[in-house]
């Protein structure tokens, strides 16, 4: 399943390159996809568990960023409140798993439904409130979420949060373990299982979003982003689309939150504050706005950015991160994917020449 799905996620690095498709480019793409899929699948088997855990974290964040990218990148609505939707997903999962021993997938579905509903409600003002004002309404949501968690500490565990006990955590189901053992001869460790679970969820989300954006609906979203009035004239129900996009986007963020808790075994309010909203937005742009690979690249950058800076003076790491962001925006407002596209275009041109 992952092997089949992964390739369709990758080729888009090049989808907007203004060169005619040629055989060589197609071949490079196919090779890249196959390599990518193999790498994604082999990763946890080759790496130690802290790396596996970080990669699972990347997948969780990538899904949330994917959601924000759908809203901001494709539909033009800036949200600084997605940490709250991620938090809703996280807490739905944490509460259900810790208090009711619910299976993870069920908690994720509940998270999706709740977040979609909240997303629609939050999206409603978008019918009337635009631009910067809407962004700031979502900021309010982000500011309030951790406070609400603390306010209802009976349910949420307050500021200490909820930590899953060993017995409540997501572990490799026996049949899966048996199957894996018969195939490879070794046990599938819990963190490896979690990685694959996150990978499957992420790939499904990416594929669905990609199909959505490539469809008639997606064209409507983009039309609304580029200019609402003509879109309306063309018969697009702008309001319904905007609100629904908000809901779907919130839902994806909540899935990210669920995966986050599955990986961290813990939900703490401080990990779903404004700062996280800002990080998600950063990941959208750093990866590449309105691209399909962008969210994954952005999430990867977010999780691994601290490794890029010298360890001797960790107190200066955020300074360097900030400056890096600025320099990236000066070099390539299209983010890392934008940068890669430029390189790719050059490569294809030189190869096919």
């Amino acid at each position, binding site marked *: 399943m992952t092997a089949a799905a992964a390739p369709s996620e990758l080729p888009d690095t090049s989808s907007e390159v203004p060169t005619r498709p040629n055989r060589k480019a197609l071949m490079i793409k196919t090779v890249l996809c196959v390599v990518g899929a193999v790498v994604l699948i082999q990763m946890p088997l080759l790496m130690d*568990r802290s790396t596996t855990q970080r990669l699972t974290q990347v997948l969780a964040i990538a899904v949330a960023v994917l959601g924000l990218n759908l809203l901001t990148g494709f539909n033009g609505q800036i949200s600084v409140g997605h940490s709250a939707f991620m938090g809703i997903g996280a807490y739905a999962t944490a509460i259900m798993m810790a208090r009711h021993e619910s299976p993870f997938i069920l908690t994720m579905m509940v998270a999706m439904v709740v977040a979609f509903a909240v997303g629609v409600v939050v999206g409603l003002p978008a019918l009337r409130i635009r631009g910067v004002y809407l962004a700031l309404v979502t900021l309010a949501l982000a500011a309030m979420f951790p406070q609400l968690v603390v306010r209802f500490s009976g349910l949420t*565990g307050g500021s200490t*949060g909820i930590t899953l006990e060993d017995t409540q955590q997501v572990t490799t189901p026996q049949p899966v373990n048996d199957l894996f053992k018969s195939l490879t001869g070794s046990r599938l460790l819990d963190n490896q299982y979690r990685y694959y679970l996150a990978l499957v969820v992420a790939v499904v989300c990416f594929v669905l979003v990609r199909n959505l954006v490539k469809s008639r609906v997606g064209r409507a979203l983009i039309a609304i982003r580029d200019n609402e009035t003509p879109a309306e004239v063309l018969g697009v129900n702008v309001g319904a689309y905007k609100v629904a996009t908000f809901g779907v986007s919130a839902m994806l963020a909540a899935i990210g939150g669920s995966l986050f808790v599955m990986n961290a075994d813990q939900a703490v309010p*401080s990990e779903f504050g404004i700062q996280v909203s800002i990080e998600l937005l950063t990941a959208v742009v750093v990866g590449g706005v309105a691209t399909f690979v962008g969210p994954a690249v952005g999430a990867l950058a977010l999780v691994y950015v601290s490794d890029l800076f010298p360890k001797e003076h960790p107190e200066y790491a955020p300074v360097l991160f900030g400056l890096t962001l600025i320099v990236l925006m000066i070099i390539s407002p299209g983010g890392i994917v934008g940068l890669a596209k430029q390189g790719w275009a050059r490569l294809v041109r030189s190869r096919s020449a």
Partner: protein
Amino acid sequence: MKSRRGLTRLLAVGLVGALAAVGCANKQDTGGSSGGGGTGGTAAGGGSAFAVGTDKCNDPAKATAALSGNEIKFGSSFPQSGVLAAFADIYKGWDASFKAQNASGGLNGKQLVAITKDDGYQPEKTKTNVQEMIDKDNVFALMGVVGTPNNLAIRGSLNKDCVPDLFAATGSQLMGNPGKYPWVIGSLPSYATEGAVFASYLKQNKPNAKVGILRQNDDFGEGYLDAFKQGIEGTGITIVGTETYEATVTDVASQVTKLNGTGADTLLLAVTTLTCPNAIKSVAEKQGWNPLVYVSATCASKTLMGLAGDSGKGVITGIYLKQPADPQWANDPAMQKYKSTLAAAGITDQKEVDNTIIAFGYTIGDLLIQTLQKSPNLSRQAVMQTAYNLKGLTPGLVLPGITVNTSGSSDPYPIEQLQIGSWNGDFFVPQGEMISYEGKTSTLVDQTKGQN
């Protein structure tokens, strides 16, 4: 910044180490005498030792294997960047004690090594850091990991890895649950102990106190409240008002205004960081109101009390460490050793030497070394078991009369004795006797709280 909400809580954790103490008198006290905390020391003595089992471990053999090679590696994760980086100073303290030990031949011929990683106070990051240190760096144990949620984040997987998480830098009462999480032990006097100690003090000195409480709206503030309520049960002491504030805010003027309206003659300020001086100043601004003010021990640093200026004079708190800046201890052997240890580690700046966070780090460093020395062998299981069966240690800069005793689930907290001190503008002057809750803290704590 991600952890703004946790910031003050973290500061709380770290600054407990900033307890300033001056012993002008009362050196005759020992752990046994107390105003109401019961007799200390007995719980720790005798009986069967607490055992740390290895049957839940992924690799039990690894947990019981004696350490080979010529070094003992300790890993630690704490915030090293941003606003919270002040707590990196804890590490400076225990690392200095490591260096001194290494200079004198190490421990059983092995050199002590510290490996640290920055987690920015994000529990998720702490977890990854810790796994990395266990898997890649092959650390023997964890030491001085900072933060309540951060230690909660790792304790579950440590049950399977069976790697000790020693003397976690948090005063959360949640750290004392060895029945379920035997691989984690805290280090600071818990907030609950402090709340109970203040109740004891009032019973003796102000039996009809009308108490107003200002507390941070989280488990830190709650720890004080619950224990204090228990402590005043059946006494003439009444709580006339309780106000809360959010950890993200330092200005509590309106809460203080409300407490002023309740007619309280005593205030329990379960606050931390910048809220300490601000609350103290707000109280002083109210004309005609001069309540007895107790601040959290996390406020007891020269930096924070200094910010309160003259308003801070007469404010009391619970203390347990000798303050390096205090001339009282100039000739004290423990203090001299502290100063020479820091100097040997290259820490000579007076501000750093006087920094009570470093003094706290030094004290838990010494506590760790003594624990290792007491351990029958250097296996993870043996060391962890030793940590939960400590008897009569007086590590680092603890005040005379304080001894570290632990005894598994019945007494999981290393330090449970405090003395009330009154701020004179430079340091806290001890008042009365050492108040001991030795072996009693676990009775103040509802371990099911916050544990789902």
